[in-house]
């Protein structure tokens, strides 16, 4: 019953069953937020922290996040690690292969603005936000698993606030 308590919901017990009234928006948002399957897209150092987050101690699964190897099944890319100029078209292609609704988390300094490779590097893409639209930035080099978890929780909050009318516009 935990879900029902959290949703803006009207429920009434009737003989032979019950009646539940809520907005479609709330149900869709809840479903989306609680089952964000992420694409395993680790390129550099952050990938190790992403692995640790998925492993025993930090247990990513409890947020409903399970890794997927193919973009077709994923709802979310966690871009973990440096994106170079050679890799950038591949990131875009993976993003294009994902089905809507899709989201992007930029994990670590490199994906935000180039990180430690901003200066003096001829091959690093300075921020992934001019390749794909980014929903959540998680700073750090690399971010701790706790900050990744918090970023994902914030993203879930964001999803829960979205309006169905926004989707129609898209």
């Amino acid at each position: 019953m935990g879900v029902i308590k959290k949703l803006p919901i009207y429920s009434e017990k009737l003989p032979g069953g019950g009646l539940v009234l809520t907005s479609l928006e709330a149900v869709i948002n809840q479903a989306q937020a609680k089952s964000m399957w992420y694409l395993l897209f680790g390129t550099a150092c952050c990938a190790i922290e992403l692995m640790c987050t998925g492993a025993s101690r930090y247990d990513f699964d409890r947020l409903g996040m399970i890794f997927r190897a193919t973009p077709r099944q994923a709802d979310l890319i966690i871009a973990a690690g440096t994106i170079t100029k050679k890799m950038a078209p591949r990131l875009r292609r993976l993003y294009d292969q994902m089905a809507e609704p899709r989201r992007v988390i930029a994990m670590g300094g490199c994906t935000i603005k180039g990180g430690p490779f901003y200066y003096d590097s001829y091959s690093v893409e300075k921020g992934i936000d001019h390749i794909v639209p980014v929903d959540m930035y998680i700073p750090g080099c690399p971010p701790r698993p706790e900050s990744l978890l918090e970023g994902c929780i914030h993203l879930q909050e964001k999803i829960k606030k979205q309006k169905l009318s926004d989707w129609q516009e898209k």
Partner: protein
Amino acid sequence: MADLRTEEFTVNMGPHHPSTHGVCRLVLTLNGEKIIKIEPVIGYLHRALEKICENRTYAQCIPIMDRFEYVTAMSCNYLFSNAAEKLAGIEVPERAEYLRVIMLELNRIASHLIFYGVTAMDIGALTPFLYGLRERELIIDLFEMTCGQRLTYNYIRVGGVSRDIPAEFEPKCREAIKIIREKLIDYEGLLNENPIWLVRNKGIGVLPPELGIAYGVSGPVLRASGVKYDIRKDDPYSIYDRFDFQIPTRENGDCYDRYLLRLDEIKQSLNIVEQALDALPEGDIKAKVSPNFKPPAGEVYSRVENSRGELGVYIQSDGGKKPLRVKMRGGSYNQLQVLPHIGTNCLVADLVAIFASLDVILPEVDR
């Protein structure tokens, strides 16, 4: 029946593939299930670390070296510091050397634990991944209490180490060693005689020693083929000559031997850490080095044994506060070069096992 017309076809494995440990791309030419040609395409993680180092002072280079080989970042820190110390003629205090060895060996164990987990996951067993990373966290906790970082430590500096270990380090470290020793029995129980594991690994991807030598392969991959070559013994650096440890070798050179060898190495590293903790002297942890020190003009090639083979750095100085040239060399570079030779004529599924057992990590290749 008329002859069936067959033709070769090309498959792209990577750069986004869960079992290529990063962003390696292998262009495979297949004849049915059989691989007849492998062409590695690298550079998807080429971050120009060498160019960056040319524009940093020696002290500023060390955080960049962390990103060169992040799974064993301590070795990279040590490597660069050691090279800069050789160039500038800096003496390192005794206690710092011991602390360095402790950290290097703990980092080697952490790296092999990742290998244990990730290799098994590539082949399809998820439990070892959870086991391996669980014990790795114990080591990461130790690093974190010492230098505050989980992955990119920047701990070993030119002239010593950045800070002393806290008081609770030693008991926690001894406890971690005890736990890992116990858990190693579990690890072996999970995989060593597991029939699926044996079928997937035994006799797969055999690397003959002559081929390994021709391609400059080093580290556990070469030792699994029977060549007893370890820089810790053959060209001792730091204070490794004071410790009593064995260099394990294996004979067959297949994926299974490479796996067993790494488990053996964990045991040896645990012994070294224990000996270093017992002998840890009191004293200074850092020699006095100016942050903008200028080593005299000259050049040095320094190398250490990390968990993937020979990790080397070549530094040329022109007498300024920034190096003229920093060239890094990682063991994975050569391991990946030899992959087309040992991977052909096997099945695609076996290639995953071979790639995993070579323990290639892409930042070391691409830099």
